[in-house]
């Protein structure tokens, strides 16, 4: 099918884009970035827009900036750039592990970091990772700039806190703690499909015990779920199979998955526990296998 008619705008600067979004805030305008999620919906008429604001001309939003506290990336950074970035591999290896599982090769050429987060599919990889890592979203409009934590950014299925006149411009990922390992695992029936459930974990080990842990699950609710209960139970514990299995169960208990053609709610909850445990196990193993001298990050 073909999209319904719309007015098309292609701003050439961020300022121009923000002005357009403000002027069109009551006119049912949608932002077009990579188009890998929006265009299928427009083509199938699952979504309609009166105006499309194409931000692909905003090259100033495609960047990575090292900060002492972590890595900041422009919203228009393409998945392919993230996938091949040495800075990302060094500082946010969870992204490097997950991005090859996002869509397929064509999708990764066009799809963007900001687009994936703003689209807010609760099964998608990048929102789950943003929640796991407490990423911060920088949101701009003509009225000003605000920073929103990932935990507050995602409201529901395909719904974020973004107002019609706002644009996600930057995403800040905090640096990993030293001596940590990470893992991203997803259950999917075929490569490139949206995960049924996914788990993102970062574990740091000190003297054989879990010093710090991050765990988030995707595909198990209206938004990615941060497993606070499991994290609290894990801190200070040795990463044994029993401990991690219990943590997986705690994480799954915090979820409220829906059912669809890919899986029942019970199945998703069961798989959430399994994938949480596996991700924790892999992250812990990678942390433990780090060389004793110096820090470094354990990654796949």
């Amino acid at each position: 099918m073909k999209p319904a008619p719309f007015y098309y705008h292609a701003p050439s600067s961020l300022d121009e884009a923000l002005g357009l979004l403000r002027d069109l805030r009551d006119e049912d305008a949608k932002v077009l970035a990579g188009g890998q999620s929006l265009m299928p919906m427009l083509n199938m008429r699952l979504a309609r827009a009166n105006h499309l604001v194409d931000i692909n001309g905003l090259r100033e939003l495609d960047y990575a900036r090292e900060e002492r506290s972590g890595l900041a990336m422009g919203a228009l950074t393409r998945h392919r750039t993230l996938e091949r970035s040495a800075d990302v591999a060094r500082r946010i290896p969870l992204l490097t592990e997950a991005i090859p599982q996002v869509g397929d090769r064509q999708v990764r050429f066009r799809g963007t970091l900001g687009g994936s987060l703003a689209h807010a599919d609760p099964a998608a990889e990048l929102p789950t990772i943003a929640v796991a890592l407490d990423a911060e979203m920088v949101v701009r409009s003509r009225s000003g700039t605000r920073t929103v934590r990932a935990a507050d950014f995602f409201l529901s299925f395909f719904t974020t806190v973004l107002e019609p006149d706002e644009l996600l411009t930057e995403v800040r990922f905090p640096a990993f703690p030293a001596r940590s390992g990470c893992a991203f695992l997803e259950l999917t029936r075929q490569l490139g499909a949206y995960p049924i459930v996914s788990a993102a974990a970062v574990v740091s080990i000190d003297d054989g015990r879990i010093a710090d842990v991050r765990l988030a699950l995707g595909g198990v609710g209206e938004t990615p779920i941060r497993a606070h209960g499991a994290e609290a139970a894990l801190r200070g514990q040795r990463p044994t199979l029993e401990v991690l299995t219990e943590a997986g169960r705690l994480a799954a208990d915090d979820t409220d998955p829906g059912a669809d053609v890919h899986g029942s709610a019970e199945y998703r909850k069961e798989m959430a526990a399994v994938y949480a445990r596996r991700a924790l196990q892999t992250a812990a193993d990678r942390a433990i296998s780090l060389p004793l001298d110096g820090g470094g990050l354990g990654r796949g």
Partner: protein
Amino acid sequence: MRLNGVAYERYVEPRRLLSDFIRHDVGLTGTHVGCEHGVCGACTVIVDGQLVKSCLMLAIQARDADVLTVEGLARDGGLHPIQQAFHEHHALQCGFCTPGMLLGALSLLEENPNPNEDEIKLGMDGNICRCTGYYNIVEAIKAAAAALMASKV
């Protein structure tokens, strides 16, 4: 827009998909439309060196771009080595997915001139085939890689 090196200028609605522009406004019907929502990859083309699904781009987004379609592969009446390899290894049956496969293979081999079997399968994950079972496609791409490397010696 430059398509296979030739400049074209057309007036289109904003909602005109690049796939339909190529097929109907320019008349190059080698690019096929399978699912029209970005899953099958039959519509795959190369825009400014990027492998993209043309059903997920608006024609106007490719304004001033260099677009390569399957028609741009053959030179001087002779098949591109990738096309030759697909022919020799029977990597097509109905041929519907083939233009997307050829461009996908071209893009993959530009990035990785000597991929192993797993790298080929992963690198072609955006293109679906209903006929062949993929085995001969993988074999053809291996052969094409070898042929391209040999021709650079």
